[in-house]
């Protein structure tokens, strides 16, 4: 069995691809299942054409072993067809659909093999669904799961929704008001980001990465920078690490506070809705004070950050934060003390711990099911190595738990910012970034506000990006929303949906 030991990798580290052994597919599948049984989870899984031979694909799976802060890298080869691992490993579900759509290969015996983003295959010579290669696939055209029978009806919503939000299509199978199944079909936001990054880094790459999911600009920007820094062997200065973590926590605060406000709005509890809507802007404005952009655009760059934080500005930010904190806690307290609010949230959209683990949920959605997932805790980089130990979980797995996780993470983030702001190291904020190592792989896991953002970069012999894989936390978590809706009232969908608040463009890429 010694030959089947995978190469291990730490968050923010690079390794030469020659060190990663290639298993045959049966061993690859067995190892993956064994890892999952030992509470490993699939952080990323993707295919890439073997350099010389065009039709053959290499398949990589990166398994996060949270308990020993490492990632196991598995590698195998696949041809036009390969046996699906999804029946035994639900975490693979969307990864296999993605690979099928990108390269026109078929994971056979996949129980739910449907397009994911509705684009043409990335290479000529076949589409997994036999769609014509000379025209763009029609978005949303797939076999939706359907329930028939007396009293059963179907409700279709989207892509254009009633609010100011991103597009996606939801198909409910209902018996009366009760939802038997919800199927979510995305792809409307597909901009082709992963392919635009190929052969990079390009001058346009950084703005594209910052808009993978524009509400997670810092999270995705940071993940990209950590991949590039790992591949080039760049040591990021301490001060830049501090500023990055501060910005990441501000991003979390703005979104968590905004989410609680929006959740209050969804049940018509206007005080918290109004106050939090305003307070969200206050946190965004703190990010703007740091870098000029409310969403942190332009702050993080490979090698460090572009904007310095001197003690005067840090003091100003901390003072404003203190003022906002009181109002935030007051606004949230109202929410949790109103019986009418509690009765709407408790028990809605419940997910069990075992379903959350099977689906590989991450971030807020996982923590609400008592599943500890936080890459700041398990795979820390930068200042998180020293200052983060407050991993929050809730037990009940319902909309209430997801709201509580957010509300409890707010003071933790504020405290982190205070500690970072009061202990800013001196020194430079940016280090030079050299050329990337050839034939290497690096992974970065950043705990964005929704959960773990994973980026993986693979270089070719010329040090260009041969493949760049992006896994937004929403990629894992949309399936959680589907399961949470089972047996719920369709009228509770907005509430359940908001309690997850997942990204459409982060999945559509």
């Amino acid at each position, binding site marked *: 069995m010694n030959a089947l030991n995978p190469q291990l990798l730490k968050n923010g580290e690079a390794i030469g691809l020659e060190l990663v052994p290639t298993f045959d597919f049966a061993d690859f599948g067995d190892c993956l299942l064994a890892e999952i049984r030992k509470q490993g989870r699939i952080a990323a899984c993707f295919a890439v054409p073997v350099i010389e031979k065009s039709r053959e694909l290499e398949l990589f799976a990166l398994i996060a072993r949270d308990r020993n802060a490492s990632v196991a890298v598995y590698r195998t080869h696949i041809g036009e067809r390969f046996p699906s691992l999804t029946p035994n490993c639900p975490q693979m579900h969307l990864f296999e659909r993605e690979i099928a759509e990108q390269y026109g290969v078929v994971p056979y015996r996949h129980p739910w093999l449907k397009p994911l*983003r*509705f*684009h043409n295959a990335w290479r000529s010579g076949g589409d997994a669904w036999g769609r014509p290669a000379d025209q*763009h696939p029609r*978005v949303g055209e797939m076999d939706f799961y359907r329930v028939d029978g007396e009293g059963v009806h179907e409700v279709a919503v989207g*892509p*254009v929704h*009633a*609010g*100011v*939000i*991103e*597009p996606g299509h939801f198909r409910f199978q209902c018996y009366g008001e009760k939802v038997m199944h919800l199927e979510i079909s995305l*792809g*409307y*936001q*597909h*901009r*082709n*980001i992963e392919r*635009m990054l190929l052969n990079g880094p*390009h*001058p*346009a790459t950084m*703005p*594209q990465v*910052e*808009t*993978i*999911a*524009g*509400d997670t*600009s810092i999270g995705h920007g940071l993940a990209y920078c950590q991949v590039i820094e790992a591949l080039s062997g760049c040591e990021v200065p301490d001060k830049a690490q501090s500023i990055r973590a501060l910005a990441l926590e501000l991003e979390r605060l703005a979104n968590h506070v905004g989410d609680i406000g929006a959740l209050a709005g969804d049940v018509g509890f206007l*005080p918290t809705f*109004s*106050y939090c*809507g*305003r307070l*969200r802007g206050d946190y965004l404005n703190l990010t*703007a*004070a740091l*870098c*000029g952009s*409310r*969403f942190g*655009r*332009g702050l993080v*760059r490979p090698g460090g950050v*572009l*904007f310095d934080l001197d003690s005067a500005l840090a003091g100003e930010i901390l003072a404003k934060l203190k003022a906002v904190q*009181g*109002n935030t806690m*007051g*606004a949230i*307290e*109202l929410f949790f*003390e109103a019986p009418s609010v509690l009765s709407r949230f408790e028990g809605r959209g419940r997910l069990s711990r075992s379903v959350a683990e099977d689906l590989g949920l991450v971030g807020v959605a996982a923590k609400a099911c008592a599943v500890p997932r936080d890459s700041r805790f398990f795979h820390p980089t930068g200042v998180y190595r020293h200052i983060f130990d407050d991993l929050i979980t809730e037990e009940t797995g319902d909309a209430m738990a997801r709201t509580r996780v957010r509300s409890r993470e707010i003071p933790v983030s504020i405290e982190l910012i205070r500690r970072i702001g009061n202990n800013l190291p001196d020194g430079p904020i940016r280090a030079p970034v050299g050329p990337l190592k050839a034939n290497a792989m690096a992974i970065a896991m950043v705990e964005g506000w929704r959960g773990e953002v994973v980026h993986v970069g693979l270089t070719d012999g010329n040090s260009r990006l041969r493949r760049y894989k992006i896994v937004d936390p929403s990629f894992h978590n949309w399936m959680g929303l589907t399961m949470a809706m089972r047996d719920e009232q369709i009228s509770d969908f907005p509430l359940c949906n908001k309690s997850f608040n997942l*990204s*459409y*463009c982060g999945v559509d890429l």
Partner: protein
Amino acid sequence: MLQMIRERWRQGFRTGKFPKEEPILPPRFRGLPKFTGECPPDCNRDCETLCPFSACKSMAGRLTLDLGRCLFCADCPACPHGRIIFGSDYRLAVRKREDLLYNGGEYPLAQPLEPARLKLFGRSLKLRQVSAGGCNGCEADCNVLGTLVFDLGRFGIQFVASPRHADGLLLTGPVTENMRSAVLDTYEAMPAPKIVVATGACAINGGPFLHSSEVSPGLDPLLPVDLYIPGCPPHPYTILDGLLRLLGRR
């Protein structure tokens, strides 16, 4: 109940005085660019290639920035002589695409709608927002206009749930291939006369995804646009200022 009243008291009155008073933006905010000095005579016009989104070019011997393509990058690489710096003016909305070609001097801020539509929409404008490949940045900055700080409703402007109730389409995102028909259907579903607002660099010219095969280079090839609001994303006050100018309220 008492707690709610106490909290209401503590939260205070937060609606901004805009447009009577100008908003205070942070010193590092990047708004309308300024051009310092002159192009050196021996300049080899690197600006035409250095901006990855081709926002910068030399037109009739003058350095010109296309604000429809510009993302207001903090590390703008366009001019190696450092002639481009971003100023603090947040007012950026214009009525015509060519007005976004800026080379210094007075900026042609948006003029009001022509009298026929202004009469209809001037005091009540209902907008249908559609995101077509937007990253949730522009969407968030539109959403925030509904909060009590900006209080969009006091200007008679409102985002509505159905295109049938809408006077205008406010679009964000570059219009992905997969959203194209939904955008056109939404436009068709609105009763005429109607207006179209392209919000953010993506909607104006494709933004960071200008060169993607899966998106349109913005809204121009698809629909007649009445207002362009640049930025990546535009500041909420930039959007609000643009809408108010369109309605002749500024």
